């Protein structure tokens, strides 16, 4: 193929540094954008799983008699929770656990401050029933009881993830457009430099597809090569970021070498393929458009 291209004298017709370098830089950015979305999505999924399903109930005056008169308020609340479909594993925090929870806020010996500390019960919430009717039932059993789920937080994280996804999509579009523009400019320069040669070959009966094909082959190889280098260089950077982010994200193993989500490894090879495709399509359009200037 290269030999044939050389016979038409189009071999060196395109700058062989500009395209790989700029397409490489664009690919680097594309990988970072995609990695950001994957990390955000993983984080959101985890929040939706853990936090969204968490139900926290606070019972003030936990040891006072219940409204029904049988047992204390905490017992009454536990009874309601046990009887509510969708709530599993209700568990009252022990004093020691509560101390540990409050210590950062209240200091040592929270109990000694004689503050009226409510009892705290945690449970899993499947989201099947309505939180409003659960609240009503709890309030009847022990007025003043508060119930909170993590759904609100999970929704906020989901919104954040969605906006990150939109930004990443915008970045990918811009990066693709810039890559395409760079390739179009390089192709135009190559065409101008080879104007006479192309006119002669055209006059001898070369098809537009012959000429466009030769330019496109070269652009495809240069863009693909640049993208492999650019995407490859992004990997160590991402590993470094993963190491920084691991303690927060929790999605990555916290011991041993940092690693990247499998989805990212799967997406990585798509970058050079996309770059090569952009190279091919852009060059075909550019060269065929230019050839229309010839009779």
């Amino acid at each position, binding site marked *: 193929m290269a030999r*044939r291209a050389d*016979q*038409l*004298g189009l071999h060196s017709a395109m700058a062989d540094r500009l395209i790989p370098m700029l397409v490489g830089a664009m690919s680097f950015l594309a990988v970072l954008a995609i990695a950001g979305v994957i990390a955000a999505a993983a984080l959101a999924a985890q929040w939706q799983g853990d936090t969204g399903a968490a139900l926290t109930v606070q019972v003030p005056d936990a040891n006072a008699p219940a409204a029904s008169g049988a047992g204390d308020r905490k017992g009454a609340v536990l009874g309601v929770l046990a009887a509510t479909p969708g709530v599993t594993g209700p568990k009252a925090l022990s004093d020691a656990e509560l101390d540990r929870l409050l210590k950062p806020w209240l200091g040592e010996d929270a109990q000694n401050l004689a503050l009226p500390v409510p009892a705290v019960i945690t449970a899993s919430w499947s989201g099947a029933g309505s939180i409003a009717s659960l609240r009503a039932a709890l309030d009847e059993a022990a007025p003043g009881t508060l119930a909170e789920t993590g759904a609100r937080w999970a929704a906020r994280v989901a919104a954040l993830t969605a906006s990150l996804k939109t930004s990443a999509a915008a970045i990918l579009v811009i990066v693709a457009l810039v890559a395409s523009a760079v390739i179009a400019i390089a192709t135009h320069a190559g065409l101008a430099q080879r104007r*006479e*040669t192309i006119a*002669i*070959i*055209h*006059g*001898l*009966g*070369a*098809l*537009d*597809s*012959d000429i466009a094909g030769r330019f496109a082959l070269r652009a495809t190889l240069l863009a693909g090569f640049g993208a492999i280098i650019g995407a490859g260089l992004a990997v160590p950077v991402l590993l470094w970021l993963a190491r920084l982010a691991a303690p927060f994200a929790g999605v990555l193993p916290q011991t041993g070498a940092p690693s990247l989500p499998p989805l990212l490894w799967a997406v990585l090879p798509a970058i050079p393929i996309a770059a090569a495709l952009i190279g091919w399509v852009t060059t075909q359009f550019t060269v065929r458009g230019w*050839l*229309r200037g010839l*009779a």
Partner: protein
Amino acid sequence: MVRFEDVWLKYRRAGEASLVRLTGAGSANAAPPDVVSGVSFEIPDGGFRWLIGASGAGKTSVLKLIYLAERPIRGDIDILGTRVGKLDRRELALLRRRIGVVYQDFRLLPHLSAYDNVALPMRLARRPEAQIKADVTELLRWVGLSEKHQSRPYELSGGEQQRIAIARAVIGRPKLLVADEPTGNLDDEQAERLMLLITALNRLGTTVVVATHNLGLVARYPAPHLEIAGGRLVADG
């Protein structure tokens, strides 16, 4: 067969479209002149025509219309039995492959050897390399440049370049051969050899049009002429 019916040609000026938009119609830019004005003629299959006329008369312009490098602004052209105006780009390219052209300025590819320049039409037609080798070697011997097959055009004299251009024009066994001043850089002996080749091809059925100023040559090879003056056909026969 080559047929022109009331053919007109005007060259577009470079950047004309944008100029017109900037300055508006009817401004200082006069419309470009017609270089071919209402030309009609017919050359039958296997015919031979001299195309003569003073410098700047429009000979090259008429040839460009024949070898499909320009399209007329008006009129109909039939080349090898095909109405040119109806062809799409691909069909035009395929028709060009059946026309051999010797350009006035040779138009060789400077970075290719003499051999590769001559081989170009066969390579575009994707002929097998063995056949290309046989045909190119034979033709280079015929034009007397076997020894120089590896030379680049800039290493060759004007006459040698012209012979390469002629070899390239005939290697595809064209049905129509168009030559623009093909003897311009040749000595008398080379010019005679070239005319022998052209007349031999013509006897084998190739339609031939040769533009020249060289009236001595025209006298030695009597054939019908088309005479151009100021873009108009002033004599046919």
